[in-house]
């Protein structure tokens, strides 16, 4: 089980703040994950239609889309940040 958490408009479009998911073995990288999630329904499709716009953190650290996700406890998907 991997915990997925969503923020800002990614959260709004998917329609949930978090979920626990069993990821299939072929989902090896962040990029694979985004493609796989996109096929899960209209909300996911709307949130992830431009994968390059999505920032990802694994276990609360920024990663790029080539990062392997094996061993991830928590994966967060969110838009570019606008703090400060």
């Amino acid at each position: 089980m991997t915990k997925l958490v969503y923020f800002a408009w990614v959260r709004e479009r998917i329609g949930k703040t978090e979920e626990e998911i069993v990821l299939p073995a072929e989902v090896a990288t962040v990029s694979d994950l985004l493609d796989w999630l996109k096929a899960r329904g209209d909300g996911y499709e709307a949130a992830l239609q431009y994968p390059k716009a999505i920032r990802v953190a694994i276990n609360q650290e920024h990663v790029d889309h080539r990062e392997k996700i094996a061993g991830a406890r928590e994966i967060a998907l969110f838009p570019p940040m606008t703090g400060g």
Partner: protein
Amino acid sequence: MSAHVVPTVRIQAEDFDIAAEVARLSKGRADVGAVVTFSGLCRDEQGALAALELEHYPGMAQAEISRIAAEATARWPLTGLTAIHRFGKIRPGENIVLVVTASSHRQAAFEAANFLMDYLKSRVPFWKKEHRSDGSEGGWVEAKDADDAAARRWSKD
């Protein structure tokens, strides 16, 4: 570069007190020659904005600011560093973020504060949503390429 400096990082809904935070880094010690503060405030966008709603990723926001703060203490000879970021609903004229840097040297204090702000803008998981004065939802504030570029200028590669 900074010996024994433990940055203070706080993510909170409440406002902060600039004078108290400056005093915490300078009071009762005589090795501090320079203290720089940066306060970021909510602007009203010519009256169109009623409030900003700041969403954040709790554990990671704290962790990421702490990583950036540790990088700043490694790069500049600081005697102290504090970063506070608010979340929740913030109205025009109210504080959003505070960075305080203290050093023996003025340029170190200036550069470290500037560095922290650039990274806070582009790497710390906060997102701003606008609530408009006319009652409508203004949507999510878009990230600026200029903020990414500002953060990249500190890159050592």
